[in-house]
């Protein structure tokens, strides 16, 4: 997997496809995401889905990409702020991401910067009927990334990401927009 060489990767890890259904897992900073996605598009990958995960370490955006010609799944993970999640849109690269991003905006309140039409998709749209993003966790239930997933076999990994997955939690969320 050399697609993202010479991009500032936060973390590159090989996962066990049999156990997790993913082949490669990458961590990116929000600023690098669009470049990485452009490379995936040029290489013929398609966006499977896009979701957000509400954790104590912040809002984790998970992008699943797959290729039609070979098995294996690439997961891009981007950590943003948990209180005011913001991330650049990829809907101009993958038009299919448009609705996925609107859905995430609905469910988790993540704002996709540069999205042309960021209006509610599935939840009530009228101004007086809108509701709080329903999939945000309560403080009691919210937990850290290290309790939810492992880092797998890392090839490259920045200290900041590694700190997320060590037993002693880092003082504050390291990834910044």
């Amino acid at each position, binding site marked *: 997997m050399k697609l993202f060489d010479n991009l500032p990767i936060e973390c590159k890890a090989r996962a066990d496809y049999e156990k997790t259904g993913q082949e490669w897992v990458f961590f990116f900073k929000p600023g690098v995401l669009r470049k990485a996605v452009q490379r995936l598009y040029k290489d013929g990958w398609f966006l*499977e889905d896009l979701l957000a995960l509400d954790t104590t370490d912040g809002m984790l955006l998970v992008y699943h990409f797959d290729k039609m010609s070979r098995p294996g799944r690439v997961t891009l993970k981007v950590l943003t702020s948990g209180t005011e999640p913001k991330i650049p849109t990829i809907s101009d690269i993958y038009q299919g991401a448009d609705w996925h991003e609107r859905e995430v905006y609905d469910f988790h309140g993540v704002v996709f910067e540069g999205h042309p039409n960021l209006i509610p998709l599935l939840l009530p749209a009228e101004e007086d009927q809108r509701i709080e993003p329903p999939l945000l966790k309560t403080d009691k239930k919210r937990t850290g990334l290290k309790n939810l997933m492992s880092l797998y076999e890392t090839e490259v990994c920045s200290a900041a990401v590694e700190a997320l997955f060590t037993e002693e939690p880092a003082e504050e969320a390291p990834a910044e927009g």
Partner: protein
Amino acid sequence: MTRYPDPKQVGGDFYSRNFAKNARPDTLILNLGPQHPSTHGVLRVLLELDGEYILRAEPVFGYLHRMHEKMGETKAWGQFMPNMGRVDYGHPLSWNWAYCGAVEKLAGIEVPERAEVIRVITHEMNRLTSHLLWWGAYILDLGAFTPIMYAFDDREHLLDLLQRPTASRLTYSYFRFGGVSKDLDEKFVEGTKAFIARFRQRLPMYKDLVTDNIILRKRVEDIGIIDQDMVTRYGATGPVARGAGLAYDLRVSEPFGVYDRFDFKVPTQTTCCSMGRYLVRMEEMEQSCRIIEQALEQLPGAEGPHLVKGAPKPQAKMPAGEAYFAVEGGRGKVGVYVVSDGSKIPYRVKLRAPGFSNLSCFAEACQGMLLADAVAVLGSLDLIIPEIDR
């Protein structure tokens, strides 16, 4: 002087007003749905029409939104299973399988061979019911009333058969972590064999009577072009991708279960039009029959029980971690991504609905077409609205 489609003057809800903002002053804005005979449930498509030609389209949905993903975060792992039968009433067993597969990956549960073969048989039969439902409804959209009766005749046989092990006819909750809930009996096997023999005779009849009909061909050929580039950009899968010439079928390209044992073809069409998608589905029914036949032959030799010993209880805890599992449903790639924090309730369940991505192609594919063609294209995408809204 005020012109008619003045956004302030146009009534309607949020989406109508939002859509009317960009409308040309001399066009007609039409709401196709949410209650409309050809939107199969409660899909709504906002159309900007110049005469009967479509300039712009925007699907609006969410009328059937049930927030399955939130429900997943409030129920125990096993208790969420029945929801999976309700996401997609067309091909519920694919959702059953995707969720079970994801949880089995997460917990490392081994599925016995016999259970895997049973899963293949029922899954493929369910695909037949799904395609038959689509076929009848699609031809109904095109204005022919009779084929749906024939399709439902066949479908009824399948439902009667599937009812024996699954105990339901539409919203199956048949798969369990580590197998299936009930074994197949002799009557089921015989009935299925008889059905396949009968269905093999019906398929050529459908081809003669419906597929080769000149009006049908003129209606669906060369409309709703979705080519390979569009498929990649929108993430469309299933017959939509195969109709664009991409031989992408998870049963072959990312084999799950025991699909690698069976000999079958992945039908593709290179026309990229609605007829291509139509022909792909018709051919897939034939291939499903082949898979069921082979699986029925392998069933007696398959070892193990139908449900693994020590299968997790509905309230069981699952180890922490994440897992993604995708199966080939009737409409395309059905993916379930689960995240566990080690408790008995999932931390996050993400459902990847194929119809969601397939429908997103529509706005681009229908530009410049006639209103009647829009109906033909919507139908050719095989939409199941509950699945898109989740």
